[in-house]
């Protein structure tokens, strides 16, 4: 009996001391597919945060963090589900940064992450449907809902004196959600949407779609699509036939690729994508430059914040078990507590290990509202002289 007691006590001691583990974190992004040009900078952002925390040696008694990549394809929900399934069951990840697009995120969350109780933080899935989804508190996002983007886009368009617009959206959850929330907001503020029609990605020719949009008319065309896909096709056809010469680009379109595709042909067009200003962002861009990638890429900073939040929540919960740390994500993201900028993750871990509170600001001024999504600051961009310029933040 005495021996048994001793053995148990020793066992407890060893278990306590052996806290350091290898924590695997999944990164499920669309490395191939309609947003493939954005994915690498997002992955680099997430890995930058993981490396920073891993190198500090302060997470859960010196645990290390290993990223595991998976291709969510963005467009193919079945492929994304299979990828997340592999990450969770085969790789045993403790949390996932992803998915990238709304449809695939909904599918992999409902089919795999929720039944397995794994936390997902998406840097870029923006469909309003994700705000109300039944997620067992497992889903968060560091980007705002498109309901908010619809409001911001309406303001930007109306401020430029444009009252009539045609809308075309990519035929999926993201496109439809954004187009509908935009139409609702725009009409409420007194604008008119002449037509709100879908386009399918991957076609050779969009002249028929553009002909329909041109028939309905409008002073500008809102292209809620993807820059690597039908979105650029629509713009090309609209420019060629002279149907529209002013375009409004939401987040799926704004990027260097758009400028490379059209150069000065889209002068006078404008758009917006989620990106905060300020010290956190500047610091992140500098860190990214040092690490050898472009931190200004769309959703790259959001990916950094997604990975940081998850790992800091683990430190706050003193556990890498998703069921334990999922409740801490909102706590570390919001006030009260010490403000944490990019590059200060080690400081954050020290505070958390000491039982203190942090208010993670990160690269995108993270403030999680509602069911765990970013409140949303957008940067307004214009295209002039073949260049994209940031003109303000909203």
């Amino acid at each position, binding site marked *: 009996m005495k021996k048994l007691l001793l053995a148990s006590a020793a066992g407890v001691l060893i278990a306590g001391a052996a806290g350091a583990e290898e924590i695997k974190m999944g990164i499920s992004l669309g490395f191939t597919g309609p947003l493939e040009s954005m994915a690498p900078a997002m992955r680099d952002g997430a890995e930058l945060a993981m490396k920073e925390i891993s190198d500090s040696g302060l997470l859960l008694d010196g645990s290390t963090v290993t990223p595991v990549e998976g291709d969510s394809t963005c467009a193919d929900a079945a492929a994304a589900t299979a990828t997340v399934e592999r990450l969770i069951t085969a790789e045993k990840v403790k949390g996932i940064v992803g998915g990238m697009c709304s449809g695939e995120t909904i599918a992999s969350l409902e089919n795999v992450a929720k039944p397995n109780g794994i936390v997902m933080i998406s840097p870029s899935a923006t469909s309003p449907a994700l705000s109300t989804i039944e997620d067992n508190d497992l889903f968060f996002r560091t980007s705002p809902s498109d309901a908010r983007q619809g409001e911001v886009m309406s303001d930007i368009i109306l401020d430029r004196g444009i009252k009539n617009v045609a809308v075309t959206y990519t035929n999926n959850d993201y496109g439809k959600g954004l187009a509908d929330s935009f139409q609702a907001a725009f009409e409420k503020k007194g604008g008119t949407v002449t037509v709100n029609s879908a386009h399918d990605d991957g076609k050779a*020719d969009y002249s028929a779609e553009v*002909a*329909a949009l041109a*028939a309905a008319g409008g002073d500008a065309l809102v292209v809620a699509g993807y820059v690597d896909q039908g979105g650029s096709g629509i713009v090309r056809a609209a420019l*060629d*036939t002279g149907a529209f010469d002013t375009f409004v680009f939401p987040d799926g379109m704004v990027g260097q690729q758009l400028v490379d595709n059209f150069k000065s042909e889209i002068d006078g067009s404008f758009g917006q994508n989620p990106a905060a200003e300020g010290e956190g962002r500047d610091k992140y861009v500098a860190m990214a430059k040092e690490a050898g990638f472009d931190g200004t890429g769309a959703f790259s900073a959001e990916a950094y914040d997604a990975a940081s939040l998850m790992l800091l929540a683990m430190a706050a919960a003193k556990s890498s078990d998703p069921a334990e740390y999922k409740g801490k994500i909102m706590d570390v993201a919001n006030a009260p507590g010490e403000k944490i900028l990019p590059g200060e993750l080690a400081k954050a871990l020290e505070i958390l290990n000491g039982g203190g509170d942090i208010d993670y600001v990160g690269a995108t001024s993270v403030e999680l509202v509602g069911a765990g999504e970013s409140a949303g600051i957008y940067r307004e961009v214009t295209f002039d002289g073949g260049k994209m310029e940031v003109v303000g933040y909203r």
Partner: protein
Amino acid sequence: MDIANALVVFLNFVFIPAAAYGAQLALGALGVTLIYGILRFSNFAHGDTMAFGTAVTILVTWGLQALGVSLGPLPTALLALPVGIAATAALALVTDRAVYRFYRVQRAAPIILVMASVGVMFLMNGLTRLLIGVDEQRFADGARFVINVRDFKAMTGLQEGLALKSTQALTVVVAVIVVWALFWFLNRTRSGKAMRAYSDNEDLALLSGIDPDKVVRMTWIIAAGLATIAGVLYGLDKAFKPFNYFQILLPIFAAAIVGGLGSPLGAIAGGFVVAFSEVAITYPWLKVVGYLFPDWQPGGLLQLLGTEYKFAVSFVILIVVLLFKPTGLFRGRSV
């Protein structure tokens, strides 16, 4: 003025795109109909033959561009085209030797050849993807427009603009030249006459000393040439993506069947019928009608079918023709 505006809108959004698309379909359908007429089977691999030819042409185009060769206002791809045709013809001949000849010697039923061509289609599908990948490629260079919207508006003072892309003009011009050359070849040359004789009656042709192997070879080479030209023009005008060439097979077959399988003239007519129906049925006529009848305020866009249903139009044409006039407009063979 309003009539002129209506006409310009019609030309810009219906006539010009449909004419270019029709010419591309007609060239594709000519290849299909030629093979059907002479080799007596529907070649499902035709779309992917187009893709293969275009892929080779694109690779050569890139090579030429890297060397700094250009044709000025014309796309460099025209220079690369002969290489593409040669490679595609070689591939077609190898395929014939390896696959189709076996069944031809056995005098197998046409349906067996059709099934073999489906196999060849998947093989070429993979080959093209190995060669150039699955992504969209744009390889048009040179001048983009013959007339662009801004210049047209300034020139005429009309409210509506008209754009004529150089690739659209090029498509129609090249198609006219190719069709003329083909008809000249079929009607005036010895080999062309031999091909027509072989198509009319194989046994009689053999009795009169026509070399069947030569006829078959000529057919493949011409079909490969037509496929490559059609593919390159389509790729120049729109964009090259292997999957789209697989999809274009349906309108091409619709065109060939509407015109009458085996009839070259029918293939051309069929190509334009399919193209104009696709565009006209999915085009919203609101703007045109608005100019012609300013007093009439219709509620909708006056669009018969949404643009998503473009492909359905070819299906409907195909079914209607097969039901009511199985030999097609120009009395080809019934299918």
